[in-house]
């Protein structure tokens, strides 16, 4: 777990052994090849308390996670922390409190970073031991680009401020 004091943290979320659920972690793998400046890279299984610890005290958090959504696999979605999030009960968290619950809980407690962006990569197959689908594999570069663009945009905003 990264605990350095950078104001921004990028958190890849997922499970490498459940097919497309590895997408978020694979994006942080790609980011790690040329680490962005001014941001920490971290990984999480998506537990709410783990996430709260990772983004605690940061001004911004970027989450990258596979999402189950209708439509084609391999789309990259962008959600702001201020957007309404689906509140289906968690079925993928080892603790019954997952990513959405982490965001909602932090919102209730007033501990959300001032900006939170979630990049979701729509997945198709989350079975145990399944390989990452070709559609998700093909979307990783787009997701990586989206994260880097977000970070550059944030950096420019900070310079302008």
């Amino acid at each position, binding site marked *: *777990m990264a605990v350095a004091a950078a104001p921004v943290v990028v958190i890849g979320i997922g499970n490498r052994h459940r097919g497309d659920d590895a997408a978020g972690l694979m994006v942080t793998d790609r980011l790690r090849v040329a680490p962005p400046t001014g941001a920490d890279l971290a990984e999480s299984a998506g537990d709410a308390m783990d996430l709260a610890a990772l983004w605690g005290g940061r001004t911004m958090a970027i989450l990258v996670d596979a999402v189950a959504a209708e439509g084609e696999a391999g789309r990259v979605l962008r959600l702001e922390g201020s957007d309404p999030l689906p509140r289906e009960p968690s079925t*993928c968290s080892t603790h019954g409190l997952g990513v959405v619950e982490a965001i909602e809980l932090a919102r209730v407690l007033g501990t959300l970073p001032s900006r939170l962006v979630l990049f979701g990569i729509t997945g198709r197959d*989350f079975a145990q031991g399944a390989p990452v689908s070709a559609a998700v594999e093909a979307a990783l570069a787009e997701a990586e680009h989206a994260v880097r663009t977000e970070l550059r945009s944030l950096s420019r905003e900070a310079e302008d401020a």
Partner: protein
Amino acid sequence: MSDANGKAEGSRTIRVDYLARVEGEGSLHLGIRDGAVEDVRLAIFEPPRFFEALLRGRGFGEAPDITSRICGICPVAYMMSAVHAMENAAGVSIAGPIRDLRRLLYCGEWIESHVLHVAMLHAPDFLGYPDAIAMARDHGEHVRRALGLKKAGNDIVRLLGGREIHPINVRVGGFYKVPTRRELSTLTEPLLRARDAARALVDRVAAFPFPEYEQDYEFVALRHPDEYPFNEGRVVSSRGIDIDVADYDSVFEEFQVPHSTALHARIRGRGSYLVGPLARYALNSDLLSPAARDAAAAVGLGPVCRNPYRSILVRAVEVLHACDEALRLIAAYTPPDAPFVAVPVQDAVGLAATEAPRGLLYHRYRIDASGSILDARIIPPTSQNQGAIEEDLRRVATACLDMPDDALQGRCEQTIRNHDPCISCAAHFLKLTVERT
């Protein structure tokens, strides 16, 4: 989440697709006919994970890291049972600072696991909320304190284990690296605050409304002459069992039931039993730290608690004990000369039981002269508790038949959560069906 489907006259079905706040994949079926509970099945449909088969042929030193992957919540328990079993096979007994560090690591896990369950997963049942988020809107301070308290446990596991979940610093014989006194002392201040928070948690939980219900469980836990049990002790019960762990298989047995992929367990010739906080407390409350003992007395727990709904209170007391024990161990710590003791390989059987947060966790391995594991058997607490949970459900449902379906369903879910079942799989939900005919 539930929906009600009217069936034939006099017949109703309640279906819950997802029960949050429990661990694992399973379902509950209650068959109610003519106003009587006929059939109770806590069915675990978690796919087999084959850990015991996976261990065959692996080196005995790999068992702690492999078995820790069984559970993301109590990996320390799996590691500890594995290292003790392997050391038992080799005839090695670890004492001194390494043993103390193991107990400290266990303190961290108990704090993490218990606080999560008490404050976030189980408390909403008592306070009338569907989940922790809804609860946090009205009880933000409670949740903030719990997060801080849990963090103290995380800090212990991270410092000793290398990371908070699935530690990587534990090995047969000890640790790969041990902390300096200075490193360990960084935990003291957070733990002092945690201890205050734990004491407040006991008081807060004690004020919850507890359903009136008692069950005459046979409690089973480890018992050590001097310590509230984590790592070792004799296996004792509230009805007279008092055996060395080596005799576990002669007293307890696993068996299969058609409706569950997880094995059940029973005392041979006697039936179900209960492991976990209620059992530990009933059999060891005299060994709690003075502050934990006082706190338990102050909230009226008494030496034995048979009300499973009050298990949340016992867990809170155990959190306070774990904070006290952690502080004691840190204050007394002197680093060992070496981080681990060499453990020789020999053709032997090794077994051990330790106290996971949810109860007694038994490991047994047979290894050959080269150190390869020939076979492995792991009996987790939830397997052992399945029978007792079903009996609870049968009695609770019988007593609550007059409740509307929604209320009965909620009470059944709460009853399951009393035992913090850890079905331990990557996707977690429990399907509950109540049929009334």
